[in-house]
């Protein structure tokens, strides 16, 4: 019993680490723009497809694939920003969101035009079996995922709180008008944040694809839904909240899957999300990034 609990908690944290990265990407974009980017997941999917294509044709190692995914996702992310968000900066939030949905469809079709099969294998994070430790089988993928996610969070923290660019990002999150008046080039910060968020998303995508050892076109929608859910759970717009929300989502999934089964797992997630939103507790409505 207790072993199961511990094992599920470990697995949940591993998955939660990748959700945390997705939520961080979403939060950055939402924080600076106050806009929802539905194409966030699909850009990640495109990156993973690019990596898969390189892998199929050149048999590259995982690190190189990660670089390919990073480049392709970032490119797609900046493209989405230019076409869907830069023009609607002061305008309609719904128009920006629908535009990002239109590009979702576009990115998805672009990916499947190159790789039309429903499913492609992706190299695993770690080919060996699980580590045995005090009766727990530690999946190495989960450890790698958690460590990589923690590293990315630390790096992001350093960028946001210790660099000049980070100062500008946080200023825009706090008040984009005041940021403009302080001499910060706000449109450029938007584009840079999109690139940064895409890079974080690409890392999450690579980790997820190699943990699942496959990519499908569904990865786009999947990433968008998981990232959104984790962001909302952690309190919209808060960076530490995004990490907490991702981990909470991972734990909630692994435990409800174990005790209730896969269908009830998703039901539980949406039920919790719905209930939290309906009750609208204060920590879900924090707006500040700090």
């Amino acid at each position, binding site marked *: 019993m207790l072993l199961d609990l511990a094992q599920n908690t470990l697995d949940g944290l591993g998955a939660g680490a990748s959700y945390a990265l997705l939520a961080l990407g979403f939060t950055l974009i939402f924080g600076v723009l106050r806009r929802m980017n539905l194409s966030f997941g699909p850009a990640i999917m495109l990156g993973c497809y690019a990596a898969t294509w390189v892998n199929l044709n050149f048999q590259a190692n995982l690190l190189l694939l990660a670089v390919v995914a990073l480049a392709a996702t970032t490119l797609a992310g900046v493209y989405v920003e230019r076409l869907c968000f830069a023009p609607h900066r002061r305008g309609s939030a719904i128009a920006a969101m629908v535009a990002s949905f239109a590009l979702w469809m576009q990115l998805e079709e672009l990916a499947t035009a190159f790789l039309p099969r429903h499913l492609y294998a992706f190299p695993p994070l770690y080919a060996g079996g699980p580590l045995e430790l005090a009766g727990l089988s530690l999946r190495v993928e989960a450890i790698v995922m958690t460590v990589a996610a923690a590293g990315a969070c630390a790096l992001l923290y350093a960028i946001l709180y210790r660099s000049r660019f980070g*100062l500008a990002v946080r200023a825009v999150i706090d008040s984009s008008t005041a940021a403009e008046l302080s001499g910060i080039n706000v449109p450029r910060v938007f584009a840079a944040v999109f690139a940064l968020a895409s890079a974080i998303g690409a890392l999450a995508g690579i980790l997820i694809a190699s943990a699942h050892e496959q990519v499908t076109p569904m990865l786009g929608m999947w990433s968008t839904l998981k990232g959104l859910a984790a962001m909302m759970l952690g309190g919209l717009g808060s960076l530490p909240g995004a990490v907490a929300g991702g981990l909470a989502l991972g734990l909630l999934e692994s435990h409800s899957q174990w005790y209730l089964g896969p269908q009830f797992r998703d039901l539980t997630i949406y039920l919790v999300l719905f209930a939290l939103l309906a009750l609208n507790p204060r920590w879900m409505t924090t707006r500040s990034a700090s």
Partner: protein
Amino acid sequence: MAALLEVKDLVTAYGKIEALKGVSLEVAEGSITCLLGPNGAGKTTLMFSIAGVLRPKAGSVRFRNEDITRKAPHAIVSSGVALVPENRLVFPGMTVLENLQAGAYQRNDSLDEDIERLFARFPRLKERAAQPAGTLSGGEQQMLAVARALMSRPRLLLMDEPSLGLAPLVVEEIFRIVAELHRDGTTIFLVEQNAHMALKVAQHFFLMEQGRVTFSGDPGSLAEDEVIRRAYLGSAKA
């Protein structure tokens, strides 16, 4: 004295509604110039249009004989114009020190000296340097907003109702600082509803009503004109 800022026939609209209907005015180098007028006259719109946050439909803004009408706000800051916006708009989640650093975002040189000098001028800010700006009192936030704007070393400081919502003692403090800044060589263009205070410091006045400049003159002519009564009426309504 030469005009540092020249606004000519400026028209700014929100959709179809024109908030500025052809505003022309000049701010002389080295002066304190004050813009009076009732709520909804378009004063804040004018400030935002000069600072580039709002894009005018027609007309021009020239600063040091350079056309800055269609420049982006950050470029206007680097050409030497800084706005202390209405309601202060500090970065609430960032510390006082970070707010000041953000204000100097266009600069690449060392900030230590400026920060030191501003802390000497605003000792309260030094005490609270590591505190999030959102936890400051209204008066302190106003000081911070002014200090942040000064971090860009502006030639022209625009101030939009710096006394709004502050206690009388704090208002006096703000105006003392305005006078000091002026003495140190900064040109100041001030929006104010508190005509009493403005009369003490400003050398030139404009009155704006319904998107137009309806009066221009020095304190003497302002006092003679029945316009001053109307300006007071405006402040009484606020």
